[in-house]
């Protein structure tokens, strides 16, 4: 089974808490990490190989190496100065070109959304552009003969569904327990990483658009009291907590 997984580098600047755990400026989008782990598990069970693709630059290479440390066989960095400012439809165009440039894949796996922009569209658009069936919101995935079977989670249902390969699976962050390889494991990765640009993919810059331009990012400010409740013993604290609750009507 040949599997392609797409990963996105996320800037650590908007996820302050993570600075405690990593020295890198970028980390792998969490649902994408789940996708890599799942792809590696599928290949362990059914044979084959996992290729990981990333649209990004050299400064974000640790993200691709992280995917390789998780067990993927090889990485492809798609890099070009123009790529920094393009919209989801254009990113999908690049990914479609990259898939078509490769040997055919049986399964293409995406994380369901990127935790920074939270657009959640890329995998579905790529599937549509490639003319492949897709299953989104996947919380479980397995192979049966020429089919991929998935459990898909909606607001109030779990739907078991199947699609013939080749297909696209769009997985949620719940698919796998969070496991992030150590910095040393990431840095010592010695697996092939190919570097492709737009020219290699046969795309011209004018074919890529940016119809959705990011103007500004601001932190949500909430006027909360932030009042610490101090106490001498737990009896007293229980009374204070119940009083606070009962004050709110």
């Amino acid at each position, binding site marked *: 089974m040949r599997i392609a997984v797409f990963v996105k580098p996320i800037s650590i600047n908007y996820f302050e808490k993570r600075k405690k755990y990593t020295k890198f400026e970028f980390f792998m989008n969490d649902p994408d990490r789940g996708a890599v782990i799942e792809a590696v598990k599928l290949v362990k069970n059914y044979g084959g190989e996992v290729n990981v693709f990333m649209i990004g630059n050299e400064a974000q290479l640790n993200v691709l190496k992280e995917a390789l440390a998780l067990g993927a066989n090889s990485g492809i960095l798609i890099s070009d100065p123009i790529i920094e400012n393009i919209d989801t439809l254009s990113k999908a165009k690049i990914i479609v070109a990259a898939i078509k440039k490769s040997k055919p894949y049986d399964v293409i796996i995406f994380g369901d959304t990127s935790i920074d922009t939270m657009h959640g569209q890329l995998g*579905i658009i790529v599937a549509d552009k490639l003319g492949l069936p897709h299953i989104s919101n996947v919380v479980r995935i397995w192979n049966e003969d020429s089919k991929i079977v998935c459990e898909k989670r909606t607001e109030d249902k779990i739907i078991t569904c199947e699609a013939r390969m080749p297909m696209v699976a769009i997985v949620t962050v719940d698919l796998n327990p969070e496991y992030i390889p150590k910095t040393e494991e990431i840095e010592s990765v010695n697996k092939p990483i190919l570097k492709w640009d737009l020219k290699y993919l046969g795309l011209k810059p004018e074919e890529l658009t940016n119809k959705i331009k990011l103007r500004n990012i601001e932190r949500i400010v909430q006027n909360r009291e932030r009042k610490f409740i101090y106490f001498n013993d737990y009896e007293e604290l229980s009374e204070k907590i119940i009083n606070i609750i009962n004050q709110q009507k």
Partner: protein
Amino acid sequence: MIITCIADNIEDLNKLVIQSNKIAEITNAEIHVILFKYYFKEAEIERIKNEINANKIILLNNILLMKYDYEAFANAIIEYYKKYKSDIFLFNNSIASKELATILSSKINVPALLDIKELNFIEGKIIVKKEFAGGVYYAEYETSLPLILSFLELEETYNSKINRSKQFEEMLVNTNVSRVIIRHVKKLNARIKELRNAKRIICVDEAIREKTDLKDLFEIANYLGAEISCSRFLSTRRKWFDEWIGISGVRVKPDIYIGMGISGEPFHVAGILNSKKILAITTDPESEIIEFADYIVICDIYKIIPKLVKRLRKSIRYA
């Protein structure tokens, strides 16, 4: 200019039309509503035809539109789009509708911005505000028409000054179904409406070690008239609840939200920011929820829970 409303349920479709009327008064747009024959009940279609304040109600007719199927629905909408070049497609924000919106975006090559907070028309530009990085930031985007949108929250009421003509049109459309076959559907006991309407909510996270430890919390919730739910971790990994509170789960707006051992991941916090008051009870003084709380208690939750139970039992006895 045309705004086209599409939803997978009648309640949301009504809200979309209310929202569209608000936009239409700034933009002078016509409002169209798309219905899928066989998917909606006849009575629902009649109600929409008579009650909704739209210029056109378009009924797309194909037997393949009986069940929700994103491929069939998207292809049918394309038939409509060939006739009426809509400028804004407005979808509700259910998982199914957002999937349909995304496929439509791909098929007609029109960008989609989903779960948006605000839409503004400023000096000929379209400015959209949307949550970013787990929902504790806002991103502002500049874009142009045509556009596919879904709002995070829809207006419930709006008194439009315009009485629209409600013209009805049935369109026979070609379509085809998805190649994904559904084997089995398991209905979950997700208490989405209950949580959305709750005045008091107790929310638990992985600081609660065992499912049996929830017994006391259910008793507290019962005494307080509160709903009880959890973080995504407890729902999807430990399966303790069929729903969770957060940006990807249920967004809540109680009078008071009581977080029991909540760490305060941005994706959870964004789902509780509409709470009037937030009470965070946590053992971790560095917990991220503290920044967003009105009242903060740093304590051992395993010591405070039995005390709360005892005190509430006593107060009920006296009452």
